[in-house]
Each structure stands twice: as structure tokens, then as C-alpha cells.
């Protein structure tokens, strides 16, 4: 039946493993010549056993000191990466907060500028102290873009400065 073992299989494997095959076990060799299953076992086990012996003889594995040292370095690097993860997460959260605050501030500035425009229009309608208010409104509208750029630049640079400071530490 497929997968069945010959009762002498373990004896043959032992003889091959201990280098007694075939001279040290003539009866087993005779059995293997007659038994199809054992013939396969001998063919395969002898080839693999000899191959392993040759490979082990020729093997030049890295020295134990090198393997240990590399493992230690790698473990340290991994530990450092793990330890810095929370810091990176905190930095990302801080950055997101700053961006959110910046967006909020920009909205407020934008709305206040509209409010100033409306104030100017009201002033025009009322025609009281027209010249002064119109001048103020023109100033705000005319200088709005530079102010916006300055605020935006500050908001972009602030998290960068924060990051660089932490990285230097």
C-alpha cells in the first residue's frame, strides 16, 4: 500500500547515517536489492546523506561573533524605530493642529476683511467722514494680499521650525 514502510527502513537509515553502508551490513544490502521500497530509500538517503556531509564540510558560515553583533545592531535599530514612532505621531498631530488653527485664522481674517468692506460701504452711504473711512478701507483691501501671504508663510514655517528644533535635540 502507498505510504507503507518496510520494517527494515529504520535499520537501513541508521546504517547510512553511521557510515556502515554497504560493507558493514551485507544482509541489509541484500534485502535492499530485493525490496523495491528499500531500494528507493537507499538511493535517496545515500545521495542526501553524502550531499549533507559534503556541504557541511565545505560550509563556511559567518562567525558566531559576526552573527551576534549584526543581530544586536539590528535589534537596536528596530528598538530605536519603535521608540521614535510615538514622537512622529505626536509631531503629526501637532502639525495637523497647527494647520487647522491656521485655516481657522485665515477664515476669520477673510471675514473681517469683508466686514471692513461693508463698513466702508456703509460709510459711503452715510456720507459722513467719507474720506477717512474710504482711505482705511482702501488700505485694508490694497494690503490684504501681502498680509495674507505673511500669515500663511508664518503658519507654514512654524511647524517646520518645530520639527527642526526637535530633530536637532
Amino acid at each position, binding site marked *: 500500500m502507498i505510504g507503507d514502510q518496510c520494517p527494515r527502513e529504520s535499520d537501513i537509515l541508521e546504517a547510512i547515517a553511521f557510515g556502515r553502508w554497504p560493507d558493514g551490513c551485507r544482509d541489509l544490502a541484500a534485502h535492499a536489492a530485493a525490496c523495491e521500497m528499500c531500494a528507493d530509500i537507499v538511493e*535517496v538517503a545515500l*545521495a542526501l546523506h*553524502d*550531499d549533507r556531509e559534503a556541504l557541511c*564540510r565545505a560550509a563556511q*558560515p*559567518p562567525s558566531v561573533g559576526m552573527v551576534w553583533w549584526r543581530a544586536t545592531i539590528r535589534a537596536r535599530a*528596530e528598538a530605536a524605530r519603535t521608540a521614535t514612532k510615538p514622537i512622529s505621531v505626536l509631531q503629526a498631530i501637532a502639525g495637523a493642529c497647527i494647520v487647522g488653527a491656521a485655516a481657522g485664522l485665515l477664515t476669520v481674517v477673510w471675514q473681517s476683511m469683508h466686514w471692513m468692506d461693508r463698513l466702508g460701504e456703509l460709510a459711503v452711504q452715510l456720507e459722513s467722514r467719507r474720506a477717512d473711512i474710504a482711505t482705511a478701507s482702501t488700505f485694508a483691501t490694497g494690503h490684504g494680499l501681502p498680509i495674507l501671504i505673511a500669515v500663511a508663510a508664518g503658519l507654514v514655517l512654524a511647524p517646520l521650525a518645530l520639527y527642526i528644533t526637535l530633530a536637532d535635540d
Partner: protein
Amino acid sequence: MRDVALSALDQLGSAATDSEAAFQMDEEAFRTFYERTARPVWAYLARMSGNARLADDLLQETYYRFLRANVAHESDAHRRNYLFRIATNIVRDHRRRPRIDAPCVADGHDGVDRMDPQSADAAGGAVRRLDLARSMARLKPRERDLLWLAYAQGSSHKEIAETLGLKTASVKLLLFRARRRLARLLREGVR
């Protein structure tokens, strides 16, 4: 901010120290274990990957994963089987990766069979080993693993099952088929 950075540095330092403590054995115990197992594991990796240089890298990876694995071993044999299990998984992972480098393994001209001076002077032995390499290359990876563990490494069916993640009952049948196939290829003298 400086306090935060200093505490982060402290954390880094302690993590580095912990990394050594995280190894499952100290250097002395590892030295003994490595001296006993490195050559057989290297031979296994070299034959399964078919590449001697690659076997060096895989060996390093095998021992690293072994050291990092926090597993209690009942016995030395268990520890050794566990090491072979890691090695098997590493070779499997390597096989799944797309090949961008690498001399191919399949024809047996892989560097593994040209480096043994003792077999070189015994021409018959060298030819047999080359035949074996070619025949093994014709087998499925799992068949190669099974045959090596059973007949080169001398592992029991139970140990093979643990190493390869198979049922013990399946090992017998799979081993029978793999053995028959390899025996036929060796007799035919695959070229």
C-alpha cells in the same frame, strides 16, 4: 520642548538596552548553540535555496529571527527543530519574492556544488552531487524540504510535521511520493 526631547532620548536608550534583553539567550549560550547548528542549517539553506552566497544571508536572518522569537523550548531537539522551521519559512519567503538578482538554482549550477574540494578529487562523488542538485531542482519545494529533513537531517515524521506545518499523518504519504520521485530521477540520471 527640551524636556520632551530628553525624555525621548531616554526612551531610545532604554529601548536599545531592552533589545539585547529581548534575545531569548545570552551571548555565551548562543555561541554554543550556533557552533553546534550553523553548519547543518547552512547546508539546508544552501541546498534549498541553491545558492551558497544567499545561504549566508539567509543564515543570518534565521538566527536573528530565532533570537528575537520569545519561545520557550522544552528540549534541545525542540530548539533545533524550531530553528529549522524558521529556516524553512525564510527560504519559502525568498522563493515567493520576485527575482531580480540571482543566479538561478534550478540547474544545479549554483555555486553550492563547486566548492567542496574533497568532492572535487572524487569525481564520482561530484557527479552524484550534481545529479542530486539537478534532480532536487525538479521537485516541488515542499518535496525538497521533506526529503532533506527526513534523509539528510534525520528528523522524525513528527519533527518534520512541526517544522513544515503539516499533519504527522500526511508526512508519511508525502514523503513516500517525494522519495519515489527523487529515486526515479536519480536513476534516470537527470540532465
